[in-house]
């Protein structure tokens, strides 16, 4: 079984400031890692994912996340946030093939960008 911990339920930050949303996971098997974002009144959208290869993955809108196997972490970062980044962010894992594709999510982090 897998579990995901997002310690920060809310993160307020000023526009153009850097931000880090933390994600730690626990699993007895290898996992794939994902960050999903939910903008107000919309569904979940995949932001980025780590399947294999380079441990640093990037999204098209400036977010990046680094897979750290020794610390079982997959923190999400952005060097300069914009008002439009205000949303709820979910970290998720799924077991490497053999365990199905079901996602295990964290409780989410509400990012609020202020002027």
């Amino acid at each position: 079984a897998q579990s995901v911990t997002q310690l920060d339920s809310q993160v307020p930050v000023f526009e153009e400031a850097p931000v880090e949303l933390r994600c730690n996971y626990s699993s007895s098997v290898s996992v794939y890692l994902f960050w999903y974002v939910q903008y107000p009144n919309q569904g979940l959208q995949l932001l980025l994912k780590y399947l294999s290869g380079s441990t640093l993955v990037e999204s098209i809108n400036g977010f990046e996340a680094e897979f750290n196997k020794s610390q079982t972490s997959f923190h999400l970062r952005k060097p300069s946030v914009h008002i439009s980044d205000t949303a709820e962010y979910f970290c998720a894992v799924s077991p490497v093939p053999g365990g199905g594709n079901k996602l295990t999510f964290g409780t989410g982090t509400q990012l609020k960008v202020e002027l």
Partner: protein
Amino acid sequence: EAGVTQFPSHSVIEKGQTVTLRCDPISGHDNLYWYRRVMGKEIKFLLHFVKESKQDESGMPNNRFLAERTGGTYSTLKVQPAELEDSGVYFCASSQGRLTGGWRKETQYFGPGTRLLVL
């Protein structure tokens, strides 16, 4: 290309009533998933269809929940009778992967969710 759609967007019912949620996956997607988020908690897996077959229903809370996917296209999730603790947001997701002796790790595309409130 149309995304995953869910109907209704909101539903308010009384305890003991029946509610049916519908999900239309992206055309051609064999995999269909149901998830639920209870207020303030994590999004939890309910079940997974591959075409019309239930691949994994380990997350279904109890036998008041019945999911179907006749013909391998849209899916319904019926709650009968509804209880107060069933309130939450029900998400549907779909992905294109095929079973080929192992699972292809395909991106799951989520719908906007159905907000269910049981009074």
